[in-house]
Structures are given as C-alpha cells and as structure tokens.
C-alpha cells in the first residue's frame, strides 16, 4: 500500500503522539497502581505464610513447651555475651586442666547470631599424649552442657604417642534479650 508523503508524515506524527501519550498515561496512571499491586501481593503472601506459621506454632505449642522445659536449663545462661564466652572458656579450662596436655593457643571465634539463640565458638590447639587427648574428647562429649566438637585435626609428633591437635568447639546459649518481630 503506497501512502502519500504528506499523509505518511501526518500518520507518523499521530502514531508518535499516540505512543508518547500511551507511555505518559502508563507511567503516571497505571504503573503506580501496578507497583502498589506488586507490593500488596507480596505483603499478602507474607501474611498468609505468617498466619499458617502462627497457626502451626499454636498447634505445636504444648508439645514444644514440654520438650523445651527439659532442655531449658541447658540453654539458659546468665550475663552478657562476653560473660558467656568467659564461662565457656572456663568450662573448657576445667576439662583440660585435669589432663596432661599443653595448650598452645586458645582463639575465640566470632559469635554466630541466630534469631533466638547464639553459637559461641573456640579454637584450641594443644599437644600431649594421645591418651589425654582422647580423654579430653570423651569429657567434652559427655559433658552436660551443650558443647560439641565440630572439627579437629590431629598430627602425630616425633615422640611416640604424642599428638598435636587443633579443635573447633561450639556451645549454644540463649540470647540475653528475645528478638521482637518475625515469627
């Protein structure tokens, strides 16, 4: 279809104006509503999820509280974070002080901060007879406190039955203050 140049220019002007008008109308009228819709939809989904979680928690309330009452003494601690770390190092000191091991270093690692609890971590390097090292492990694993050896590295030494070890030990403690907000 051939279109006369003047008519073509006129059509182009109308088309451009229509496109610009549509863009303008879209950005000023429709787009804000679309953005609001997106935000509201996301809020709606979150609220629905929250409600399901809340209802689920309420259903489990009795069972969880019963189980929690049993472990509560293990996790509840006194004092602030520094005091808790200090308590943790003292606890480890009590364990290895009775053994024939030489502590080469004790390194306090950053605290892993979770929503409702925290995980304290310490790396200890020690040397000594393997018998004492195994005793140390046994004592840690049998301890009533929620402590756990997460990693260790053991290297035998020149002297018979002497080993050098590096241990990564963690402890779960309750937070000083309960966080507000998220379920």
């Amino acid at each position, binding site marked *: 279809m051939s279109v006369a140049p003047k008519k073509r220019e006129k059509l182009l002007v109308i088309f451009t104006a229509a496109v610009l008008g549509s863009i303008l109308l879209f950005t000023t009228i429709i787009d804000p509503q679309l953005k609001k819709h997106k935000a509201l939809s996301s*809020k709606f989904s979150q*609220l629905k999820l929250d409600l399901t979680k809340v209802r689920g928690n*309420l259903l489990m309330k009795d069972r969880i509280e019963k189980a929690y009452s049993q472990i509560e003494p293990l996790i509840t601690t006194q004092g602030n974070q520094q005091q808790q770390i200090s308590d943790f190092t003292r606890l480890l000191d009590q364990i290895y002080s009775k053994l024939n091991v030489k502590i080469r270093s004790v390194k306090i690692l950053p605290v892993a901060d979770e929503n409702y609890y925290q995980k304290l971590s310490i790396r200890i390097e020690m040397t000594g007879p393997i018998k004492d090292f*195994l005793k140390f492990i046994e004592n840690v694993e*049998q301890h009533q406190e929620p402590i756990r050896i997460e990693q260790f590295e053991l290297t035998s030494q020149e002297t018979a039955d002497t080993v050098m070890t590096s241990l990564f030990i963690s402890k*779960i403690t309750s937070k000083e203050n309960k966080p507000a907000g998220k379920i």
Partner: protein
Amino acid sequence: MRYIKKPKWGSIKITSCGSVIAYLSSCIYFENIDRFADAVKRKQIYAKHWIISIPDNLCITKIIELPASDIDQAYKMLEFELSSYLPLPIEELVYGCMPISRNENLLKVLVYILKVKALEDILAKLKSIGIKPSRVMVDSVAAKSWFSNDEKNDSAQINLLFNNKNTIVFAIKDGIVQRQDDISLENTDLENQREYIIEQINNTATELATDKQITLKIAASQNIGEKIKSWFNGNFNNIEPLELPQLNSFDKESNSFNGKFIFESVVAQGLVKSVENPELKYLNLLGQKVIKKAHQKQFIKNSVATFVLAIFTIFSLWLNFVVMNWRIDYVCHKLAKEIAPIKHIAIDVESKHQKLKAIEAQLSNRKQISEIFSQLYKYSPKNISISQMSYSSKADAASVNIKGQADTLSSAFEYSNAMKNSELLNSIQIINAQQIPKPGGSIVEFKAECTMKGNSK
C-alpha cells in the same frame, strides 16, 4: 405497523404530492413529510446515512471527454473543465459525475450539475425534519441502478416502468440513459394505449441504433405484467420481467396503493442499490464543500470517540487495579487482625522451637568421635600406622580424612577391607597410595577418607 430497522443506508424520495417513500430494508410510505419527520424523531425508523434523490429536470447534464486514467482523476479535472462548458461560475454549482466509456486515453464522463441555491433549498427542507443526507443523487440514475443487475456498459436496454398514470421508458446504451420518455395513461386505459406504446418502444429501439441485442426489461404490477410482456414477444427476443418493490404504509395495515408510487418506490430502492456501485462514488450532488465538511465532522467525531474510548479503557484499567489493590489491602488487614492477638504466643513458641532444634542438633551424634577412635584401634591392622587425622561435622553428616603409612601397597589398599566390619568407618576409601623409598627398604604413604551419615541423636 412500526418499522424499527437499523440499516446503514436509508433512502428518501419525496413524491410530487408531498408524501414520502423511504427505503430501509423495505419500501415504506409516509402520508406527508411531517409524519416521516415524526417517525425519525421518535426513532421509529433509523438509518446511519440517508441518501436522497432529486428529479432530473433540476440538473444540467453534460457528457465530457477528459484525458484521465480513472474517475478519481476525471473528477479532479472537472473543477477546471466545467467553467468552459457552462456560463455560470463554478462556485455557484455543485456537480457529480459517472464514467461512461473509455476511448484510448480519453475517459467519457456524464456530469450532473446542480445550482448551489437549488441544493441549499432541498437541504434546508430536509434539515427542518432532522435529516442530513450523506448523498444526493438523481432519479434516472437511481432508477437505472434499480433496473441494472450486473450488465456491462456496452449493452443496450430499454427499461419500462408501468405506473397507473403513466409509463416511463428508459433507453440505455453504453451505460447512459439515452432517452427518458413519459407516456401518459391519464383519461384512458392501458389497452387503448397499447399500439402507441409498442410504436414508441419500437422507435426507441431503432433510435438506439445498435448492432447488439436489445434487452427489454419490464417492471409492472403482477396483474398486468404478463399481458404487457405478450405485447413485445414478436419484436424482442430478450424480455425480462422484473418484480416491483412492495410498498408498505407506515401508518395503515392495508397496502393498497392501486399502482401509485411505483416510480418513487423504484427510485428509493435504486438509491440504496446505487451506493454499492463504485462507478457512482462521484455522483454525489452534495458538493465538495459539504462532503469535505461532513468528512471533517466525521473525522472529529471518530477522533473524539476514539479518545473517549481510550480514556475510558485507561480509566477502567486504572479502576480495575484500584479495586484489586483495595481488595488485597482489605484482606491483608483482615489477616493482620487475625494474626495480631496470637502473634506473641506464636513468637514464643517459635523461639522455643528454634532453640529446641538447635540443642537437638548440638547434642546429636555425641560420642561419635570417641567411637571413631575406638573403632580405629579395634579394626586397623598392625602394619598400618596413622600420622594425621582430621574430623569435620556439618548438619547431619561427618567426614574423616586419614593420612597414614603401610609397609606394602597391598596392605594400604587392604585397609578399606579391614575396616568393613567397623560400624562407623565401613565406607572408608583409599584415595591415594604412594611407595616412598627409605634407607633399607621402602614405605607406602596413603590417604583415606570416610563420610558418615549421622543417624543417632
């Protein structure tokens, strides 16, 4: 009887006695123009566009040959050509044209010319009854359109239209009405005029002076149609009887018009038929100014309608989103209201649940390391010594990597077999073994690894 029809085109023919014949999807008779105006006003009849017809005697007709390739070009040329054919200035005239024939580069057109004043009088009369016609045609063209089917312009035909008062004869050759005669039947009956009519038709046929066969089309009421056809059986080989349009009164149930308004009915129906003929697109005596103005008005009307529709669509879309957002917001508020009173209990339960899970994970697989050492002592062969060992636990899995020495390669590779009975280390794999020469012999150094899935708590 009411005719509520909504066709695109409607036609009007005002009769000499002041009554109106309108054609919508059928021919409707109105006693007078006021009755018609009332029906239009009450929307008892409706047409998007109206087309009217004026008598031929109001127009001047000219046949002009123009060096045009088509009718569009010819129509544009007429603006400059017409002044040489007429003593009147072109501004005082409106004109329309239709093609007749082509002779090499010349296009022969039939031009109908009307004085602007005459047109204005007609339009003013119609305007007073609320009608703005989109087209103005002439009676003969409308009647010719009614008679024509799809015959070519090079044919010759004589069309006879029998009224109760007269007989109208159209002689058409090469698509042009060559002659239009009116044979009066007043004060006499049809049978008495038989000889005269036959003679007139024969003369007309002779005047057409064509070597082609002449078609005789007869439009007459049913009671006389067959009789008239028999008059011409000897003279014409090709006779076509045509059925007249049925005229219905708008106000009365009875439709007995006693043969009256046959010509007007034919014209009214022919007008609507002529709209479909592309050759007649420039035969509109409304005048360029009026047509242009009408087009502009239509364009503005369409633009406004499109704009309003676009705004309405956008508004609807916007409203849709607003309502949708309002609805979601309302539901959100409802959910928040439902959550609020139980939220603190849920947070407390969630906190305890999380701590419980953390403690369970922390206390799981206790004594695993002691057990690993115990099994290493129990199952490792005497000729295997371990120089390095690492342990790592993550979630519910733990891995052990061992570096050790054996006296031979086979002893090293048999190490995994030796550990088969171990409960924890039964999946130990040798991943590397290397024989290293030493003073007085050699030693094999190997690396082994074992992954354990935690299952005890």
